């Protein structure tokens, strides 16, 4: 990865030459076509990718060879016994040595086979996971907004792992089953009268039919079993999470019944599965084929065609069919899981990201004037509109506060500005130019977003602040001071080099927010969107947060989604959103006069009347 520092350039070049909708691709993606062709093609493309095909070839050859060794060992055994029957034990040592060589070399060959197979399986897992990760990195933010992190994780680990299991052991077991079905037959054909093929051939035909019907029956039941286990887990987890509520509403019995119901469903599915497994017919067919084979062989013995040693060897060869009979059930289950897993991976990877990049777009430094003209938006054609006919203007350098309850469309509104989504109707202008005319990169690089739950990477504070822009310690300290973060950072055990996040120092919401503000200071965007829903339970923290926000909104256009009355009180423009519509708009004073709901916030909270509030406003002037 020596060239990784040049990545931005590489990625840009790739974007134009390979796939225009990918935001990031560090190297040439070899599986684009296969992914679009379908699950099977994609899996095959991976299996035969580069040197992988040689691995498969080796696995195939060694399996065939070791199946030959087992069969040959039985033939030699037959010969030994035949000669012993004739009272000839002069070759005994010779035969025993051959049996020993065969008996020991088969496992050694198998070991080699396992190692190669395992390497292939692990490589596949590694490569698919890398492909998946890289692909997701290249997806647009609108894609990521829709994903639950747990889902992504489940796919990146469990589903990818299924592909590993598909190779080790499933793939080699298939080859092995297949060879153990075929090789004994070949040996029978070579060393025995051909009519002895009758019993094993009948078996194979019956086996394939019975197996198919078994799989058809068991598949839905295992599905139900897995599903009901999941439900049982989910129910119990929820009950225990809400244990305080359960206890205070004395619902223990009802909750227990809920759980036992789910456990009962699991039990029923389990028993049903047991019944179907007990009825696994191929085992019966196998036993009967051995009987048939034996009868046939004895018949031929009476005819004088076979000797006793051959009977024993023949029965031994037919008995080799036991392995595929047993193993097939598991193999099919694993393959099915792998294909489902691959499908789930492709579901993600094949999703188009709907940004419509304007390659000839304008690149320029913006002032920060934002204008919404009759903007309407919904997430999909069928769903209800989230935003309805919005119009307002923010002058460059102004601060606007958006207020409204959850679901009123506040966050969606801000996402439209950086084109995480495109408007359905109307338009958004930045510096009097439709945002769709800008080059996406140019537009986005001048807009920063500080989200409600600030995310910090589990690295040092320093690296978190400089995430977007490599800077010196002096610069970092300076922005941290502006963001009112220097104080608490210097008190951390290792100062700016303290680890944060899951494994490191636990920071409060207010502290994380101030680190994010410092990060934004460094990147110095023209437009800042700040989802400020951080709560401060003590006044000192509140003072700091207020000061940090005041510093960052200087000299740039700022859109605040805020719960803080002081921010609302002093914003240049306040927009009250309700169900996607602007129900009130103006300054604090204007809203006190025009909006009943807005007035109630202050009147009710502070037990004062309107006149008093208006008087306060006038005092300011």
């Amino acid at each position, binding site marked *: 990865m020596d060239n990784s520092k040049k990545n931005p350039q590489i990625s840009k070049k790739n974007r134009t030459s390979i796939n225009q909708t990918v935001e990031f691709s560090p190297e040439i993606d070899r599986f684009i076509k296969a992914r679009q062709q379908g699950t099977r093609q994609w899996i095959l493309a991976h299996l035969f990718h580069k040197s992988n095909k040689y691995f498969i070839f080796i696995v195939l050859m060694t399996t065939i060879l070791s199946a030959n060794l087992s069969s040959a060992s039985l033939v030699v055994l037959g010969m030994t016994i035949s000669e*012993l029957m004739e009272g000839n034990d002069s070759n005994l040592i010779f035969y025993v040595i051959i*049996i020993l060589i065969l008996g020991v070399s088969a496992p050694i060959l198998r070991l080699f086979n396992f190692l190669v197979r395992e390497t292939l399986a692990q490589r596949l897992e590694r490569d698919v996971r890398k492909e998946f990760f890289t692909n997701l990195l290249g997806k647009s933010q609108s894609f990521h907004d829709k994903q639950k992190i747990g889902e992504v994780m489940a796919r990146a680990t469990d589903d990818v792992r299924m592909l590993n299991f598909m190779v080790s052991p499933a793939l080699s077991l298939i080859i092995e089953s297949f060879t153990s079905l075929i090789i004994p037959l070949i040996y029978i054909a070579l060393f025995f009268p051909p009519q002895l093929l009758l019993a094993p051939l009948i078996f194979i035909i019956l086996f394939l039919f019975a197996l198919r019907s078994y799989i058809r029956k068991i598949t839905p039941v295992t599905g139900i079993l897995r599903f009901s286990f999941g439900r049982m887990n989910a129910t119990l987890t929820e009950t225990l999470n809400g244990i305080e509520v359960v206890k205070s509403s004395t619902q223990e019995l009802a909750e227990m019944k809920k759980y036992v119901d789910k*456990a009962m469903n699991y039990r029923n599915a389990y028993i049903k599965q047991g019944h179907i497994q007990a009825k696994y017919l191929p085992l019966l067919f196998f036993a009967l084929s051995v009987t048939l084979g034996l009868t046939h062989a004895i018949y031929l013995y009476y005819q004088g065609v076979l000797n006793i040693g051959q009977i024993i060897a023949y029965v031994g060869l037919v008995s080799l069919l036991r392995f595929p009979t047993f193993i097939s059930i598991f193999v099919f289950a694993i393959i099915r899981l792998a294909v489902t897993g691959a499908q789930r991976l492709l579901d993600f990877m094949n999703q188009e990201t709907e940004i419509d990049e304007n390659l000839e777009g304008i690149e320029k430094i913006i002032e920060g004037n934002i204008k919404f003209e009759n903007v309407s938006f919904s997430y999909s054609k069928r769903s209800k509109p989230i935003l309805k006919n919005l119009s307002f203007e923010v002058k460059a350098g102004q601060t606007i506060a958006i207020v409204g309850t959850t679901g009123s469309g506040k966050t969606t509104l801000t996402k439209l500005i950086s084109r995480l989504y495109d408007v359905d109707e109307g338009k958004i202008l930045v510096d009097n130019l439709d945002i769709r005319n800008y080059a996406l990169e140019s537009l986005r690089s001048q807009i920063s977003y500080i989200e409600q739950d600030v995310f910090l990477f589990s690295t040092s504070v320093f690296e978190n602040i400089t995430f977007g822009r490599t800077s010196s310690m002096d610069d970092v300290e300076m922005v941290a001071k502006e963001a009112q973060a220097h104080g608490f950072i210097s008190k951390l055990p290792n100062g700016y080099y303290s680890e944060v996040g899951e494994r490191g120092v636990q920071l409060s919401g207010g502290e994380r927010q101030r680190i994010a503000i410092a990060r934004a200071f460094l990147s110095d965007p023209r437009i800042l969107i700040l989802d400020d829903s951080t709560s401060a339970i003590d006044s000192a923290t509140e003072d700091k947060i207020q000061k940090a926000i005041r510093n960052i909104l200087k000299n740039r256009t700022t859109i605040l989604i805020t719960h803080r009355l002081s921010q609302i009180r002093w914003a240049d423009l306040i927009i009250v959103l309700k169900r996607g519509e602007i129900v009130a708009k103006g300054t604090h004073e204007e809203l006190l006069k025009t909006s009943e709901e807005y007035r109630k916030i202050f009147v009710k909270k*502070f037990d004062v009347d309107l006149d008093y509030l208006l008087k306060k406003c006038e005092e300011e002037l």
Partner: protein
Amino acid sequence: MWAGLEAEEYDRKYKDKYLVNRIVSYFRPYRREMSIVIFFLTLSAFTYAAIPIIISIAVTNLAINREPIFLVLIIISIFSLNFLAWIFNYFRQRFTAMVVGDIVLDLRRDANKAVLNHDLSFFDRNPIGKIVSRMNTDSRDFGQTVDLTMQVISSFFIMAILLIVMCFINLFLAMIFMISIPLFFIVALLFRKIARHKTLLGQRALASVNAYVKESFSGIQIAKTFRQESKLYEKFNEVNNQSYNVNLRKGYVLFTIFPVLSVIMGVLLTLIVYFGGIYVSGGQISVGELYLFLQSLQMLFFPLLVIAAFWPQLQAGLAASERIFALIDTPPAVIQNNDIKPEKFKGKIEFRNLTFQYEDQKGVFDNFSLTIQPGESLAIVGHTGAGKSSLAKLLARFYEFQGGDILIDGKSIRDFDLSEYRKQIGIIPQIPFLWSGTIKSNISYGFNNATRDDINEALNQTGGYGWVEELSKGLITKVGERGNLLSMGQRQLVVFARTLLENPSILILDEATASVDPFTETRIQDALEKTIKGRTSIIIAHRLWTVRHVDRIIVLDHGKIVEQGNHDELMAKGGKYAELYNTYFRHQSLEYIEKMKEKKLA
């Protein structure tokens, strides 16, 4: 498989004998089914063992006996033995599945009952994920072990029968057989040690990949905003390659065991052929008998492989049962002296010389006394750790106190029937918990016969129905897991409505510290105002509005009341409360908000 093996607090070591007795007691209700299982298990073992013996007799006699009747007899008996074996096995498996299914269900039911009866200190100590996995996954593993044990026992039966027959045929050859058995186990156990270590490493490596994927996509927005995808990509490659290397090594080790066991078998085969060959040519044994040895080798190898491969799983199954029993056996800590079913409380609460501490921790209350009059609203303020929420939790009987007493309407709370008592106490926790259902189902939780009117009435009382109507589907809007599709404030309104529907005599409210949008905040104030009216209310206050509206404020410090009175009195006094006001409530005042502009200009 071996991750997270560290012992938990409610773990106890059972004596093996006790453990076995305990397991057996779960089988007791299914005696009839179990005897059927054992019956068929024995039968199928005998038939399976008989087949190679019959074939061996056939082979031995082929050369001598050419009677067609003999042949037909042999064929028919092999045919019917095979058929019967399958039938017997069918019944065994069928009944085993039934017994295992039922026992696992019983285990789960018992564990669930035990867990739900614990007080909250149990849940403080034990992470929910672990409890869930004990109840569901461990019981499933236990069930699998039972199933597996059946198969192993059946294989042992077959082996034992064959070994006895072999001993009669030729003691020396039988001895070669028996010597190999411990060898199998030694190899398998040796392997287990190494495999265990490697598996653990492999899991850790995978876990770090998992953690990194989580981190990357949690922070994807920042990476995208700053165009730093390559940073994530490089680090990912590092952990992914590490996982590859470690897991590859793990795979190498794990898959070596089967070839090694096969080598043992290959050597064994050679020995049998060699010595058997000598005996055959010496005339001590017949070819048919040699055949029996060779066949037995195949039959021996299979169960040994099963046992060797599943030995860890067998042990894990035993350990799993031990863990579930430990869960069931942990005694609940709530003390109940009597089961008086109270009339509607008037609501007088008296804490009398109360002593309380969380387990193994510093005392929270020592000789604490406080009396609250019926219908009074009381706010508790104080720094973190002053004992504010402990007081509320003790009253809710979520924890047990060690000394003194809590009396309601003059009676000790330990004398009341727990569930009747809790029905009269309404609790609104700081972080509201909603069930993943609709708003309606959450409000009516615990009141299955609540009508739509009741629900509307409850909502109306919390200060309005309006916000629910603003949602896409009104009352039947889905709230998501833990209610996360609603905002904190909205969740709180739902909990208020639920509490009002319950109509408790005593209300305990831990005010939220999370920030709430101003419109919802106004509604919460309305709801609070209506909810505390006419009932004894204890509020752990974080809101300026609340402290200004309650009848009495007590200031708690290290489990002691240091000041009490109403807001204005206490502010005038200029003591501890005034100090707390400056720390926690000042920024919520109108003066503060109005002053911000000056600072902005400055």
